[in-house]
């Protein structure tokens, strides 16, 4: 029971962080049809900016400023580069973001070095929030969850309840009509791109000190957020939320479980010994294959339901 509850909490908090990361990616994709390969790099920039700003001032200032700075950078990139490549089609846009991810990586290494930086959890949030049986639950993880849920709620309100949200949704499905009604659709695109980058940066601000801030952090999450977006359904925020939580919980539990084929076969009455054909595969434990489970899910999802859990695109 203790293991179940703690693992569930760990899984949900990790899943919510994944959601913050992938929300921006899926939003940008649904708006512009662009898969932003540099998305995880904006996550990394968020963490590094937050580290730098918190060195100069404190964490709370960084918490507000770093995402804004990254959003401005993202907006500037959209305005100056992405918009110009738009007319050359999606492949050009994809390649430009791909290139950008390398540029950001090298710049980060030039400025902050190739090794992890000391970006620490603020003292006020360091410590345990409550005790569950023998385990304690760290305050910072709870803080991560609160921020993610707050972000989810405000995103929902902005998109569904405000005039800006209406225009964004209109531009999403009927860009020409929206433009004919006098709305500046390119500016809406820039706004969404900047917003998406800002969300990734926010995830970086709170993920960077919860785990580790290093040049490899973008690559470490880069692949997984694509899985989230594809499994959830390209362009679907709700799908991204479900997929993030699913992957977060699945990975956390998989690490904790020592199930293997041998156990399964033995309970069926089949005896497996080291001499059995394919023994190295049968003896693999679920905990050992945990890191590849999300990718397995991606493959299965693409075979069974290519549009994802809540995707609407029929291709």
């Amino acid at each position: 029971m203790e293991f179940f509850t703690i693992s569930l909490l760990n899984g949900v908090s990790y899943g919510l962080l994944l959601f913050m990361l992938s929300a921006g990616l899926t939003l940008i994709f649904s708006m512009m049809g662009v898969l932003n390969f540099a998305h995880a790099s904006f996550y990394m920039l968020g963490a590094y900016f937050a580290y730098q700003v918190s060195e100069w001032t404190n964490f709370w200032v960084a918490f507000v400023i770093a995402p804004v700075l990254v959003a401005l950078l993202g907006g500037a990139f959209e305005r100056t580069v992405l918009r110009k490549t738009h007319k050359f089609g999606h492949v050009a846009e994809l390649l430009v973001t791909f290139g950008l991810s390398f540029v950001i990586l090298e710049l980060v290494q030039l400025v902050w070095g190739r090794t992890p930086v000391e970006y620490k959890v603020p003292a006020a949030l360091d410590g345990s929030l409550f005790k569950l049986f023998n385990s304690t639950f760290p305050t910072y993880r709870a803080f991560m969850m609160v921020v993610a849920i707050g972000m989810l709620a405000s995103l929902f309100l902005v998109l569904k309840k405000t005039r800006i949200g209406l225009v964004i949704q209109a531009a999403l499905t009927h860009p020409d009509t929206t433009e004919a009604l006098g709305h500046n659709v390119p500016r809406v695109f820039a706004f969404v791109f900047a917003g998406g980058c800002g969300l990734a940066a926010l995830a970086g601000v709170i993920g960077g000190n919860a785990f580790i801030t290093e040049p490899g952090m973008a690559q470490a999450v880069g692949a997984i957020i694509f899985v989230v977006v594809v499994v959830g359904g390209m362009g679907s925020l709700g799908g991204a939320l479900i997929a993030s939580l699913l992957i977060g919980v699945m990975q956390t539990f998989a690490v904790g479980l020592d199930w293997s084929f041998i156990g399964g076969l033995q309970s069926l009455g089949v005896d497996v010994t080291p001499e059995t054909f394919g023994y190295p595969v049968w003896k693999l434990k679920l905990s050992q294959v945990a890191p590849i489970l999300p990718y397995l899910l991606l493959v299965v999802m693409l075979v069974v339901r290519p549009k994802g859990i809540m995707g609407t695109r029929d291709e």
Partner: protein
Amino acid sequence: MKVSLKASAIAVAVSLMAVSAASAQTVKVAFIEGMSGPFGGVGQNQLNHFQYAAEQFSGKNANSGVTVQIVPMDSKGSPQEALALFKKATDDGIRFISQGNGSSVAGVLIDAVNKHNERNPGKEVVFLNYAAIDPDFTNSKCSPWHFRFDAGVDMKLEALTNYMKDNKAIKNVYVLGQNYSFGQQVSKFTASMLATKRPDVKIVGNELHPLGQVKDFAPYIAKMMAAGADTVVTGNWGPDLALLIKAAKDAGFKGNFYTFYAGVIGAPSAIGEAGTDRVFQVSYWHPNVEKNALESTYTGFKYKFKEEFYTVALVNATKFLVAAVEKSKSTDGLPVARALAGMKGKGGSGEDIELRAADGAMQQALYISQWTRAGGPGVKYAMEGTGHGFKTVRYLEPKLAAMPTTCQMTRP
């Protein structure tokens, strides 16, 4: 025009001669190490160790004036990159290489050195391994060109399990390691040694995780607690250890940790106050050993780099290399390798150490130390500003720390 050409040619020749006269006293060592990537911090810190050791124990500080010159090469921790750099080093005429972080890398380097030396007689390369401690390197895969200045996994775990044997409070042991040759050896040796020394102890988990990929160890800690572990044995190093201990602290895990590398950069900060008396380390030296022969080196390094000094193996490698060059009067691979085999010297706590000729493994003292509040008896120095340091709880002289070898090789 002609005259000036001739004059400049002579000038060049003279300067070349001057250079070669000087380089007879200089021995270059290619330091092939991961200095970027997840373990980059450890690699950079080791480079500082090596450069500081070369500054303190060679050149004008060596009687003969033999200078060790370090050529850093960043392998990013990858075996492929390390192989390419090895090729570059040999192309540049470098005869000595040094590496330590990652037995996965050391393994391919040993193979590469063996092949290179077989194919290029007269241009032999010697591998000074300062920290890759997979015991196979001095047993089944031993090589006359490889010298290991650290103590092997077998030596360290023999000492560690002998210490654990006497602690009756240990009931449920969890073994967690990085999934590569070194972590696998730690897991294998711990399980088999504990099974014979303490049959009553239960191994409640024996787990390997991907090297340098796990950033959130909370699920592993939850699993340890669910398994009822009171003791964790881990060979993790660098961020893999720091993040593991951080997660244990966050989850309120109360068990003890028996580690190899709790004193290595980043780990002391992560252990901090929460790990008081609960983290143990097996090593060939620590800053608070009695009869500390390297106290001034420790304080000097700490003052210069604001980092902890612990890799005595690099000091010993420097000293032994200088002595071998002096003894063989050569900077070539073969004569120096001959001089290194069986060479004797003094270790970090003044003990008699020997680079055993049979397998190239350094025979040295071992310490089990415990993380305690600094200031009391036996804990003079605190680490990384934590107010805590390591205190010797067991000392093994080199004779007692020695392990047999199955190495079968003929030295050239």
